């Protein structure tokens, strides 16, 4: 696919490979090295990629409306990562949850002739056409998280692993409850009309199949909000007088869920969260409540998307990989963060 594109010229590739070998470009996003924790978005704290200024790149960023802690962290990560590079100019549109509005914004960025586009679509399927349009106009697209319908609409996709979240949460709970016969597990899911919620549940159920002694006895869907988390969890606690573990899909609704647990005076089970909010990390570190771990869906993916876009604009590959080009897709790992490794992740926690 990329052979007709300017950035894939042979000379470009050679230069790119040379430049990349000088420094690890993307290591910041894959490395687990602890970083100084300062109160700023995580992207800045990661070990530096190749900071040497290269060719000037203008990146167009069309992000989501930040009406949720995680989405807000996405925007913050993208912005602060771009500020880090003197050779990157970020053209940012106002975040939007409205498909039509976002299509308009992306078309504006195409008309401005940005070098690379980073798009977190309000709806991946609905925005496929405008992704195709950008690619046809010769602007490579980095598709962030919510995936377009066809690989033709993006040069590179980077996003989280919803199935993996469920899988890792299920395995963590499975190991913790090992040896306990007749263990009961419940699930507080996210918004049920989202595909990602089904994937998270599927992963969870698949993981639990490895542990025949564990039975999932209840599942209720909340709405990713604190209010819905509190309401649904209060009901679940009433419905299940006794259970051993709870998986909650989202740390933001987890704030409400923890509140309901506290109000009901329950502490007879272990809880695993999802996403990686700062408040969840702090609770895990303090270790004085039911929350023992959370599975990541890291918002640092937005910082990585900027790195990938910069690499694309400068026709470079990724440090640490033998390839001359950046990959066509990158699925992040949903690491389990518990007391043993929470310090390492603290700086990536979003509010």
């Amino acid at each position, binding site marked *: 696919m990329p052979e007709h594109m300017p950035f894939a010229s042979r000379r470009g590739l050679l230069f790119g490979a040379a430049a990349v070998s000088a420094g690890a470009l993307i290591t910041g996003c894959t490395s687990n090295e602890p970083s100084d924790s300062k109160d700023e978005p995580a992207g800045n704290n990661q070990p530096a990629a190749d900071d040497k200024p290269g060719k000037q790149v203008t990146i167009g960023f069309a992000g989501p409306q930040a009406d949720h*802690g995680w989405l807000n962290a996405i925007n913050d990560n993208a912005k602060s990562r771009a500020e880090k590079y003197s050779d990157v100019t970020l053209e940012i549109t106002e975040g939007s949850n409205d498909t039509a509005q976002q299509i308009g914004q992306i078309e504006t960025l195409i008309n401005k002739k940005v070098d690379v586009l980073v798009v977190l679509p309000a709806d991946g399927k609905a925005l496929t056409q405008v992704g195709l349009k950008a690619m046809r106009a010769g602007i490579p697209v980095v598709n962030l998280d919510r995936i377009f319908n066809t690989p033709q609409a993006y040069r590179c996709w980077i996003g989280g692993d919803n199935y993996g979240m469920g899988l890792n949460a299920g395995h963590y709970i499975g190991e913790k409850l090992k040896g306990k016969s007749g263990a009961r597990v419940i699930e507080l899911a996210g918004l049920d009309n989202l595909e990602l919620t089904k994937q998270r549940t599927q992963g969870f159920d698949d993981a639990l199949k490895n542990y025949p002694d564990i039975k999932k006895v209840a599942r209720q869907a909340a709405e990713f909000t604190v209010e819905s988390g509190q309401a649904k969890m209060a009901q679940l606690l*009433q419905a299940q007088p006794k259970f051993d573990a709870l998986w909650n899909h989202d740390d933001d609704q987890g704030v409400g869920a923890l509140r309901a647990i506290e109000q009901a005076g329950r502490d007879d089970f272990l809880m695993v969260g999802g996403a990686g909010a700062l408040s969840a990390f702090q609770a895990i570190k303090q270790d004085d409540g039911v929350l023992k771990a959370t599975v990541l869906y890291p918002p640092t993916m937005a910082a990585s998307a900027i790195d990938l876009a910069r690499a694309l604009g400068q026709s470079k590959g990724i440090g640490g990989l033998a390839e001359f080009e950046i990959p066509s897709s990158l699925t992040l790992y949903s690491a389990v963060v518990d007391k043993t490794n929470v310090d390492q992740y603290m700086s990536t926690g979003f509010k």
Partner: protein
Amino acid sequence: MTQPVSPPLDSSTDKVPPAGPPAWRGLLIRADVRTLSLLGVLAVLILIGGITKPDEFLDTRNLQLVLTQASVIGVVTVGMTFVIVSGGIDLSVGAIVALASVWATTVATQEYGFAGILFTAIVVGVGCGLVNGVLIAYGAMVPFIATLAMLASARGLALQITDGKTQIVTVPSVLDLGERDAYVLGIPPLVMVFAVVTVIGWLVLNRTTFGRRTVAVGGNPEAARLAGIDVRRQRLYLYLLSGLCCGIAAFLLIVLAGSGQNTNGNLYELDAIAAAIIGGTLLTGGRGTITGSVLGVLIFTTITNIFALNNLQSDVQQIAKGAIIVAAVLVQRRTASTT
């Protein structure tokens, strides 16, 4: 809208009873078919809950839970009932709850503790109600439009204040109010607030000039004006009242959820309108009861509770909720036309 068989004011069972018969006797006779049918629905639900999940449903803690969960939306619905009875509508209640809750929980406000949070929530609620009221009463805007505009801007402002972040409450005295230790005689403080708002709402609508004027404005604004009622001022007060209820509800929500978030109060406007309509309030105004609205809220909360206890998924819950709205209104139509 089908009009009641008799003129609205006379068919309203909540209008001020003529002096004479003892209050209790009057109340019993006046407990109209509509209220009884709602109580019947609630009884059936309780029966279903008791049969399907006897241990979990018929439990003191569950009763406390259902009432607590009804409190926030219940307070909003009391305010909404007044507005609808006056022939108006308030689409901004959910957004006002969101704005009031995030403003009251921003860190700067939390430094002033309990009083700071309570005061801010109420001032923001009343402030939004004031804007609604002025636009509708003196700007001659249609309530639907004015409150739709408030919905949009209050949600936007809430998002701006929070920057999408969840404002976690760190004031112990606020949080303690939601804890089991704070229950008095087994009644959670939130439920007490809900009960007090309900009783005051009932008294104001049924026993005061303000209430009579509200019904009159909703029944026929022109006739009310000719009868010497300052219709504009009355409307202003009503939206202020709805805003006040939203402010109180926002505080209750802060206690309940321990945080402020711009997504708070999502779709409260529809829940409150649905509860009021189920309760027999006419969307065209002129008739409505606080008792009916509160029963409507309790019916919805009980349904949600039974669904959750039986582990039914949200799609089933939504379908059933819709079916129950239709069924309740149909039952009321029948009973209303036979009285």
